[in-house]
């Protein structure tokens, strides 16, 4: 699939301002945007969200702290006449007449033209914006609207490749504004100029743009949503206003902006006392609880001042989740979808907000089929479908929790082969360590579960691993540390220490040389209580699949740290959100971007990461795709969801955000 190179690429831009007193203010965080030639893109957000800063970066007036802007294959390093800016305050030279202001630009930008040609160009442009009558006036003799016309004329006269408009009509009265908007639209349509406009006027953005980029409220502003407008070009105000989706889009923008307004920022917590007493974290006996065990046993918690951390071995995932919700546990290892599912209300349950700032592990699951199925030739999902069609059976599969990655991945894997996971097969929830017994007893025909239970089934000869989650979705988030947002707000320093300790523990776990030692730790009775050999498979040695085929060791079968693994990315959670809604496990929130932001505290992760001097933002990537190659674009998750062939009915509703979600400021 050949990718069209974007005309302008804003490549993961961060902007940090050093403030007096040595503090730094992160205005923009990880902004990535691609703009095609001839597009009209509006940047919309609350004032102070950094949209003008972003425009200045594109214009070249400012160098971003991180990342860069590439236009037509070249990096933007300084301003230039190919990127003309129309400033909000016009910035006309007051000692020059209208004509001279435009002529200066033409002379500077097009030195190759003859004097007569330049003169003609200036006159033509003035004509275009209806300014010929005022050509010999000084800016001080003009009204605001006229001045902005001159500024637009100056910008257009040099035929820039991009027109950058910084709230161009913000200071004008409504009537003049409307008039100039239409003029700008006509001129841009006639010349095909690419435009990027900063505005806070929702209707202006709708009228003029092809795409509206909604920025979240700063600090750490990033792109919240991108709306693609369906209005045809050439357009006029009347057609746009009467377009059937105009008010839906307008409402969507307004509700996004309102959601952003709700984001408040916590008070400084420098003064809050560091609470005494221990911290209890829950875990389930699985290999991927390794970061928690390592952090405790090897002193990473202690290193960050968390002297007394108890690890509580959970009876079931449900017990851990209720433990965290009730406050009995400060945090717990959870499946990546769990905090989101709890926040949305799992399977009709009440919404119980949970959040996470760190991904503890990635990958590490496998789908195991019973040896009987294997012997009947079932090797892939397609074989399974053929088997079901032939025999008319409804095989049962074990999963460990409805809001588990295993459930979502197994369902995706089945559905991709045309098997409806609710009708053609039966999915039963079983505790992970019971899976092998059930498989042995023939109660289930397979399962999707984490390690070491797949290897145990293989070792005991009851099952064969047919695929692993690395093959279904390389680098999928598996376990996260789930906490209550209230706790994060009440004890931000402890939370920060916890995240830092766990990031370091993750790094330790991803060093293959340490893994034998970690395996010894894990198999202790208080943790997994098992034989080290079971842990070794896939962790330090090649995974035996039970099909007799020799495989190489894959270090990323368990991934803890590499590729910014601990970063709680928002894109992946959005995909998880679509899958939860697809199988009717949770409703789909109308205010999805707000919920994603609330559940994945990438800002708090970033804070910890910066203190550890490691990359603090989500890795690159505008879209993700699973093994079947179906691309997932984050701009319109509902469209993605509606397009999948096998799914349940969608329940779309507004989910009340938790009001405690907010950025504590670390003192």
């Amino acid at each position: 699939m050949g990718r069209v190179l974007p005309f302008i690429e804003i490549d993961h831009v961060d902007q940090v301002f050093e403030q007096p007193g040595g503090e730094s203010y992160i205005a923009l965080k990880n902004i990535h945007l691609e703009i095609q030639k001839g597009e009209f893109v509006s940047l919309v957000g609350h004032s102070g969200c950094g949209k003008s800063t972003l425009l200045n970066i594109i214009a070249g007036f400012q160098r971003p702290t991180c990342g860069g802007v590439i236009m037509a294959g070249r990096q933007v390093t300084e301003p230039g006449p190919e990127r003309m800016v129309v400033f909000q305050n016009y910035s006309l030279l007051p000692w020059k007449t209208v004509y001279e202001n435009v002529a200066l630009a033409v002379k500077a930008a097009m030195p190759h033209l003859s004097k007569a040609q330049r003169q003609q160009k200036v006159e033509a442009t003035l004509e275009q914006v209806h300014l010929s009558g005022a050509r010999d006036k000084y800016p001080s003799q003009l009204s605001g609207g006229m001045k902005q016309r001159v500024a637009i004329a100056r910008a257009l006269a040099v035929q820039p490749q991009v027109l950058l408009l910084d709230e161009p009509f913000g200071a004008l009265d409504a009537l003049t504004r409307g008039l100039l908007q239409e003029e700008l639209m006509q001129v841009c349509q006639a010349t095909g100029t690419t435009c990027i406009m900063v505005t806070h006027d929702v209707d202006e953005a709708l009228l003029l743009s092809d795409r509206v980029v909604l920025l979240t409220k700063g600090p750490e502003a990033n792109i919240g949503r991108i709306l693609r407008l369906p209005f045809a070009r050439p357009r006029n105000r009347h057609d746009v206003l009467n377009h059937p989706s105009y008010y839906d889009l307008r409402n969507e923008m307004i509700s996004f902006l309102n959601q952003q307004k709700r984001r408040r920022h916590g008070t400084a917590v420098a003064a809050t006392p560091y609470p005494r007493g221990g911290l209890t974290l829950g875990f389930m006996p699985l290999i991927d609880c390794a970061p928690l065990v390592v952090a405790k046993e090897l002193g990473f918690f202690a290193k960050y001042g968390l002297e007394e951390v108890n690890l509580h071995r959970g009876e079931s995932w449900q017990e851990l989740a209720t433990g965290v919700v009730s406050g009995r546990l400060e945090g717990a290892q959870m499946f990546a979808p769990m905090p989101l599912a709890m926040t949305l209300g799992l399977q009709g349950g009440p919404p119980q907000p949970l959040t996470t700032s760190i991904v503890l592990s990635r990958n590490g699951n496998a789908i195991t089929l019973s040896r009987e199925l294997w012997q009947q030739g079932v090797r892939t999902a397609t074989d399974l479908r053929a088997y079901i069609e032939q025999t008319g059976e409804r095989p049962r599969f074990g999963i460990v929790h409805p809001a588990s990655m295993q459930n979502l991945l197994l369902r995706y894997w089945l559905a991709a082969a045309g098997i409806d996971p609710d009708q053609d097969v039966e999915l039963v929830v079983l505790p992970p360590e019971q899976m092998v017994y059930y498989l042995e007893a023939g109660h289930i025909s397979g399962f999707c579960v984490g390690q070491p239970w797949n290897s145990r089934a293989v070792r005991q000869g009851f099952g064969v691993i047919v695929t692993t989650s690395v093959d279904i979705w390389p680098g999928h988030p598996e376990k996260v540390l789930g906490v209550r947002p209230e706790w994060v707000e009440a004890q931000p320093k402890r939370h920060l220490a916890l995240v830092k300790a766990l990031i370091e523990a993750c790094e330790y776990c991803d060093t293959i040389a340490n893994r034998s030692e970690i395996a010894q730790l894990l198999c202790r009775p208080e943790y997994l209580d098992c034989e080290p050999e079971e842990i070794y498979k896939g962790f330090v040695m090649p995974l035996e699949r039970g099909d007799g085929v020799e495989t190489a060791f894959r270090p990323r079968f368990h991934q803890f740290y590499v590729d910014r693994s601990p970063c709680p990315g928002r894109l992946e959670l959005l995909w998880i959100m679509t899958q939860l809604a697809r199988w009717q496990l949770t409703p789909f929130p109308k205010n999805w971007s707000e919920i994603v932001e609330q559940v994945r505290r990438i800002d708090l992760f970033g804070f910890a990461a910066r203190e550890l001097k490691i990359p603090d933002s989500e890795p690159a990537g505008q879209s993700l795709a699973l093994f079947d190659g179906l691309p997932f674009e984050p701009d319109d998750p509902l469209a993605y969801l509606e397009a999948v062939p096998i799914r349940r009915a969608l329940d779309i509703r507004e989910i009340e955000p938790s009001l405690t979600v907010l950025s504590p400021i670390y003192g």
Partner: protein
Amino acid sequence: MAKSDSIFLQLVSKRQSRWLKRLQDLPLRKVVAGSVGAFCFLAVWQLVCMVGLLKLPTPIRVISDTWELIINPFYRGSGNDVGLGWQILSSLRRVAIGFSLAAMIGVGLGMVIGSSRLLYEAVDPILQVLRPVPPLAWLPISLAAMRDNEPAAIFVIFITAIWPIIINTIVGVQQIPQDYKNVARMLRLSRKDYFFNVLVPATVPYVFTGLRIGIGLSWLAIVAAEMLIGGVGIGFFIWDAWNSSLISEIIVALIYVGLVGLVLDRSVAFVGRLLSPGDE
């Protein structure tokens, strides 16, 4: 007939009221107010001297004493004995030379210093120390350096006028609004284009503020310097009159000095306005 008369009267009265209104708006009002003020001043002066509070000639006395001097500004006698017009002109000549030098060098230096932060930081302490030195304090140095009265007087004018010119030009260059600089960066203006299209026009108002202060100071300094140096010039004329106890002549000379100072200041301001178009 009567009817048309009344209409006529109405028209007249309307026109009259409009005329009166305009009179109130026009500078004529200022002229009248100014004249009344001046008259009151003269009356108080006359009164104070008649009563004997000040041992000065009354205004009427001044005019009668110096009538010859007033009506013959371009009288030529021998040596220093020339009319007031000549005295003023020769002072103006010194100011013209000293001030022109100060303006050219001051504006040039100011633009260079203002454009470079490093240079500004290097030069600023010197400027701050030399700026408050009173004009006359320069005179001995100047005499020592020049060894002649005429160049010394011109040097005093020069050194007095140059500081406000340099400092204001520097401020002007530093205060060029970022907006204009952004426009220049965006258009990638060449150095020459930037200088003539942005830097110079943007600094003109500041430069002329400096020039106005400079010309005022030069005129202050020349009178004092000439008193000490001698020769033809309004300063020495005053000193000479004092030595001859011709108080009335001093008073007339003072009025001339004041008027010329005013004209100089307004002329510089006028040129400044001419050179900043588009300024409302």
